């Protein structure tokens, strides 16, 4: 039961992420960009006074990746809610691993999806989450070449540092005061007297990550 509930939550989260990507014209969105978007949504959720969807994520040395989220995404594809394209499996002989790539978008012709989307629009929390994800997707769409995955790798929490070199990140233990959140709060000091909106702060942080990613 617990597993099913968790599974359901993942799928709703995925529909919300893909809806936001749709709004910001980021679809079809590649697997790595979608995971990077999911991570940035978790790490930046305190800016919108929301709790992160997923508290923990393992550091891979590449861009952020949630195995459980991917599993549910595969299932959404199989259920016909998400349409994949440009699927391919690449065997990396050096790393002895198989990498899977695809582009994803919501399948709006699905009656099931229409029903789900209608239900989400009636849920107050879901509406707030969707507004946040939409604003973040808009901000990420402004990155050069939409290099969301590269930018997410340069996030202040995700990037390994002398202060935090652990193999995984636990946002719950940071109690909403992660380095990322502190950096976003510092934008207010950079512009004294002007009250920055949360959406504007997201935009500025995305811009900051873009500059970090591209030197």
């Amino acid at each position, binding site marked *: 039961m617990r597993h099913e509930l968790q599974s359901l939550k993942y799928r709703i989260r995925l529909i919300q992420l893909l809806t936001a990507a749709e709004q910001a014209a980021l679809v079809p969105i590649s697997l790595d960009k979608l995971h990077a978007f999911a991570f940035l949504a978790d790490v930046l959720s305190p800016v919108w006074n929301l709790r992160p969807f997923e508290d923990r994520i393992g550091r891979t040395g590449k861009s952020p990746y949630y195995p459980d989220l991917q599993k549910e995404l*595969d299932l959404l*594809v199989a259920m016909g809610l998400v349409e994949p394209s440009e699927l391919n499996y690449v065997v990396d002989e050096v790393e002895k*691993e198989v990498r899977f790539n695809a582009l994803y978008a919501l399948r709006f012709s699905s009656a099931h999806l229409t029903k789900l989307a209608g239900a989400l629009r009636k849920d107050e929390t879901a509406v707030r989450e969707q507004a946040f994800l939409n604003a973040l997707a808009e901000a990420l769409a402004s990155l050069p070449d939409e290099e969301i995955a590269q930018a997410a790798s340069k996030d202040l929490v995700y990037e390994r540092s002398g202060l935090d070199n652990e193999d995984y990140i636990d946002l719950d233990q940071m109690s909403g005061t992660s380095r990322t959140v502190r950096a976003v709060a510092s934008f207010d000091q950079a512009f004294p007297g002007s009250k920055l909106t949360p959406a504007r702060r997201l935009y500025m942080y995305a811009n900051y990550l873009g500059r970090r990613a591209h030197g």
Partner: protein
Amino acid sequence: MNRFPVLERLTVSNFRMFPGSPKSPGIDFRFQGGISVLAGVNGLGKTTLINLLFRLLVGPFDLPKDSASAKFGSAAKANVVSWPGRNTYFPQRVADRAQSASAELWFKLGHSQFSVRRSLSTLKLQSCTFNGENLEISGNEQAYRDSICVAANAGQFVDFLTAIKYLTFFNEERRDILWDGQAQRQFFRILFTTPEEAREWIELEQQISSADSRARNMSNSVYQLEQDLNEGEKLLVSNAGVDARLSAEQTLLDTELRRRRELELHAERLDEDLKRIRRDLERSKLNEDLARRSVEETRFARLGRLFPNLTETARYILTQLYADGRCLACERESPQAQQRLEHAVESSLCVVCGSDLTAAQRLLENAESEDDFEEAIERLSLASLQRRSLADEERSRDQEWQEVLKELGDLTASANARIKKVEALRSQLPPDPEDLSKLRSSILELREREDIEKRKRQSAEAVYDRLLTRVSERIQTATSTVSGYFQELIGCFLEEESKLSFKTINDRPSQSGRIFRYPSLRFEMTAAAFDGEQIRSSPDDVSESQREFIDLAFRMALAEAAAIDGEITMVIETPEASLDAVYMERAANLLCTFARDPRSIVVTSNLSCSVMIPALLGPETNDQDEIEERRKRVLNLLDVAAPNAAVRYHKRQYSDFLEAGLRGRRV
């Protein structure tokens, strides 16, 4: 003290305030019997001259200034201190700081003749003779002070200083004597007792006062200690069981604190474990994902070869369909369906309709080996198992961690409450009986010392009582003489009927000691609104101008009654200030009545009114000898003082005014 200074001659040299004339530099003035006048307008130095006379007599000494009280202190406070203005009062009045200025006064005290010369920059004695013999000059002027006391018949120098300051001199610093019981008592002591008795009076009051003060201090300390003792004894009775309760609570608290420490250590270990498990769990998720992708990739490839016409999406869906063992339609676990699908693909049968696809079998044979695929499946199975077991372990440790945190919270709240309880019990702990015993000893010891001081005070009071009994009759007799003189003098000034009546008043020389009866004189005067004489116990009961002259008349009467040979010079500063023309005549009448041989008065006049000088020096006359005689009585500051602007421009008018006064004319 029954002899007072009679001023004879004053000289002032090199003091720029009084340059004199080229023919007669400085001041050289001989005081006459009767009235002498220091005449000059404002700013010519009349007050300075009065203070100069005073300082020549008493030197750089003064009475302690009790600014908090306008009243006289008790005899116990009688003391001589250095005068703060000794190095500044005269120097600051002239440009050369009075470096070479000096003044000399010749005066009589009974049969003794004194001359005193002092530097005006320091007030130090430069020379001093007593009956023609030079006296030894020292820093504290002991020889001069002793000689003065002997000649004046004063018990000590402080009595001489007090009498000169408040009886002989009636200047700006004057304060009420008639309306101040303490002041009356001091003057009765100084004037109407022998020097030995006057000295003994002070010593006894000092003994009584200090013994009383020490006894009171000890009594206060004893009171505090007794309070502590009572508190302690009460605690001893009412909190007998506190010790046992405290011990029990402390044991419980220690147990709780020990348990809390254990839990804290356990929580630390759990935290470490959780971190490790979570790290491994996240890693296992990634491993599982990689293993899954390997399996998927093989299946995806196989499906591609079996169904070359299927779209990628359909292949992907089929891959997922038989990868997860779960029905994507109803989401139920269905291992049979997975086995069926696996079998169909391995047997080259269509997964949907079951048709034989052997033609495609060849393609499969040359693809990946079955062993590799089995190994990939095995890896996935292992990775999933590891992930599940780590997830279970994390859940279980997290549960334990939550329980430890809750117990820690409960324990901390309980321990904090118990700490407060222990502190409260500790404050109720009865004191150490040994401490109480020490406290009792201290109280007893202090009580004994308090009794000793009280006995000292009582013993001094007994001697004091005998002294008062011995002198009171003499003082009462003297006060009746004072009353007689006063009546004669005040009659010259007041229109109203007035008198002094004798009364004894109750007072004590210490705060808590015995009460004594002291002689005192009370002023009574008729008033327009009342029948008969009314008691005027306060200076506020008479008008401002009356008050000044009533008090002056009282001083004169005291001096007249005390002076054994009748000789005294009183120095009075500008008495006409607050009077109208009629009362100015009456004031002059009062002064002249007093200044009958052998008594004399030195008075200042600021030439503001044409009444005072003729009233003091005599009626109108053209007799040149008489006018010259009067002129000798006047120290004309218009001629000897450094002229101010008023004198530079109007000297002629002022001189004419004074000249008219000398001739007895009222302008």
